[in-house]
């Protein structure tokens, strides 16, 4: 094991406290199969899946219910039962989309997924196909189809696989508990990914407040040591946004991903620990992605827990499993509280990319408006990339968003560290988004060749 420090995150006035105490000691609990699940056809970045079942059909858990289309992935029934409806349903990010609703039938059995004895020696193309067929997307929150991320463009070479176990979002502990309970699945999954992309070096990155998680991974790595792949576990300082892809790549390899480029530009592939475990299941057992682990936590929930729940579980069922809402609950956040989205209600399904459900209390940001920039420089010290959110925000307010390029608007990946520290409660991330869209429009209007 080695300790690597990330230069740019050492400074700064304040950063969000991890606040992971409520669930850090709660091992993963299985949600009893819910009475109903709602499976949106889009739970990934890409084309929506096309249903291959119809209303009234009996389906078994694990059965494919929608076929992949274009750049998308297929969808599977996460409980056994009857297709109750295929229509528009709520969606956590898209508001409403087509979804397949399944009413559980206790009598129907799940499909079996026996081990493939040849699983360690499959060809990369076969592994990629199993990953696609399993409907796997990035489980760290991005929900990008994993088979596409692992199918590198021609001419691209990578030398390092980075497995992200940093989990820097405050409150969330789902990845941490997975590292403790299933380190072997993560390590084996990482070994499979290494073979797919053809690298011999695998680096696990874990934040320093999860040393036992790192130790579990290291033990599993030693147990599965193989000649062709070198596995290392690195501890990084626990400081938001350490787990952001760009930060972790720089921390562990010293390489800096150019603005708007993907990690393979610096010969690195990054996968989240939960995705690595899912890849292991998909390749070894041909088991589709049926459940996910989600941290249900925050001051708004009675019993914070880490829950393994079928994809499509209504969030209200998750909340009920965790003892219900406290009197002070005022806000629902899907994902982590820094980069997640607020939801207006709980009759929304759990989707593949949702790693947290955080119930917060008190007023939301900007509920009482925001003040002018007083040039306190806190955002400058908080920005992990050295951008200037203050300057961007002032220009956007003045209607001169296109002048914000030199302050780094386009390089911002919206970690929210600036918005967290701003004493004027300014919506700095949203100003960045406005600046980006103005700059995008401006670029598009320029004649080709001058862009």
């Amino acid at each position: 094991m080695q300790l690597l420090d990330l230069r740019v995150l050492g400074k700064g006035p304040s950063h969000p406290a991890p606040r992971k105490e409520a669930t850090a000691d709660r091992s993963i609990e299985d949600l009893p199969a819910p009475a109903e699940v709602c499976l949106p056809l889009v739970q990934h970045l890409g084309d929506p899946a096309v249903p291959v079942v119809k209303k009234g059909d009996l389906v078994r858990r694990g059965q494919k219910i929608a076929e992949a289309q274009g750049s998308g992935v297929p969808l599977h029934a996460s409980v056994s039962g009857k297709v109750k409806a295929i229509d528009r349903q709520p969606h956590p990010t898209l508001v409403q989309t087509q979804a397949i609703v399944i009413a559980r039938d206790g009598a129907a059995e799940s499909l079996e997924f026996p081990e493939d004895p040849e699983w360690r020696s499959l060809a990369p193309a076969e592994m990629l196909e199993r990953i696609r067929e399993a409907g796997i997307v990035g489980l760290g929150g991005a929900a990008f189809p994993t088979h596409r991320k692992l199918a590198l463009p021609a001419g691209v070479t990578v030398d390092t696989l980075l497995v992200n176990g940093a989990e820097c979002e405050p409150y969330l502990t789902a990845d941490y508990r997975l590292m403790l309970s299933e380190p072997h699945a993560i390590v084996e999954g990482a070994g499979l990914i290494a073979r797919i992309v053809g690298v011999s070096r695998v680096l696990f990155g874990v934040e320093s407040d999860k040393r036992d998680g790192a130790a579990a991974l290291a033990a599993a790595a030693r147990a599965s040591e193989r000649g062709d792949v070198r596995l290392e576990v690195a501890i990084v300082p626990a400081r938001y946004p350490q787990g952001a892809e760009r930060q972790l790549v720089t921390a562990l390899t010293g390489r800096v991903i150019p603005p708007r480029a993907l990690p393979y530009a610096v010969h690195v592939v990054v996968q989240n620990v939960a995705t690595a475990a899912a890849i292991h299941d998909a390749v070894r057992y041909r088991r589709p992605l049926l459940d996910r682990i989600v941290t249900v936590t925050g001051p708004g929930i009675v019993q914070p827990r880490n829950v393994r729940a079928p994809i499509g579980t209504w969030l209200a069922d998750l909340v009920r499993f965790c003892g219900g809402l406290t009197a002070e609950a005022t806000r629902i956040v899907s994902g982590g509280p820094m980069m997640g989205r607020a939801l207006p209600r709980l009759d929304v399904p759990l989707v593949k990319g949702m790693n947290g459900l955080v119930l917060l209390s008190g007023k939301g940001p900007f509920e009482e408006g925001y003040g002018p920039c007083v040039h306190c420089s806190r955002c400058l010290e908080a920005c992990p990339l050295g951008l200037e959110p203050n300057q961007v925000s002032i220009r956007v307010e003045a209607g001169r968003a296109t002048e914000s390029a030199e302050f780094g608007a386009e390089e911002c990946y919206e970690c929210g560290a600036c918005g967290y520290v701003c004493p004027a409660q300014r919506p700095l991330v949203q100003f960045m988004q406005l600046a980006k869209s103005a700059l995008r429009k401006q670029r598009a209007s320029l004649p080709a060749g001058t862009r």
Partner: protein
Amino acid sequence: MTESVGAGAFVVTPGPHLRAAETTPRIMWWVNAALLPTMAWGIWAFGPPALEVILAAVVGAVAGEWLATRALRRRSTIADGSAVCTGLLLALTLPPLVPWWAALIGGAFAILLGKMIFGGLGYNLFNPAMVGRAFMMASFPVAMTIGWSVPGPRNWYIRLEAITTATPLGIMREQSLSAAIHSIGGPEGWFRLLIGLRPGSIGEVSVLFIVVGAAVLLARGIINLAAPLGVFVGLALITSATGAAWLHLLSGGVWLGALFMSTDYVTSPNTRPGQFVFGVLIGLLTGLIRLWGGYPEGICFAILIANAMVPALDLWFRPRRVQAAGAPS
């Protein structure tokens, strides 16, 4: 579909959904609180006239803020504490026996033409308190130069008649450096300078109590020392030729200016290197004015001139961007 749970209305706001506890009003009120020690010392040393001046300047500043927000039909911003802060800072730089009405007008002017005319908090180029003081020096030159008294309850209402007997800086200017040093006396005299037993502006005389207040802001992470250090370095550099850099560093408004005005967020540069250079500029200009300019004290104009340099300093001293080593691929 599931019932009851989650039927209530939840608030949807953009992220990040967590916020640091520090807010602009909290910061401003902390600055005001940090000015209390030196203010209390000033009131003890210079008595009811000093209290009168402080109240008048604060009332003037708050009234100016109220008037401007009303005229512009904006939400009142008095509660954010910044107008009180401007009034306080202005008062602390005034001679204790300045007429109250002059302080009142100065406070209102500081806010109206130092801050609100630029668009309010955050948009002003110049330190509003210093704009107010410069305005008072131009408008009430006599009142601003004969308003001194000797500290201590027995001397509260006794006006020092001649400027030449007033402050060490005044003596240095009108007579000589050795006379100024002589006026301080031995080690006990230096101690009196540190604690604030000397004639001077209400809140500028006590280095000790200014430092106590600034230490609170430093501990809370509200200010940093880049700019103040620059002020001391700059002033020491230019006054070392006279052989009395220490006297200069301990005199006049250097400490209040360095710790409470060169650290003003709005009118100082954004990055620490920029702040340091800004401080050095203030120190150099203060020394220049004291040694060769038309006034015994120079920190007020030094700050105003350095304020004008801030936009340029912000362009020259930028945060260090994390850059990719190679060309984007």
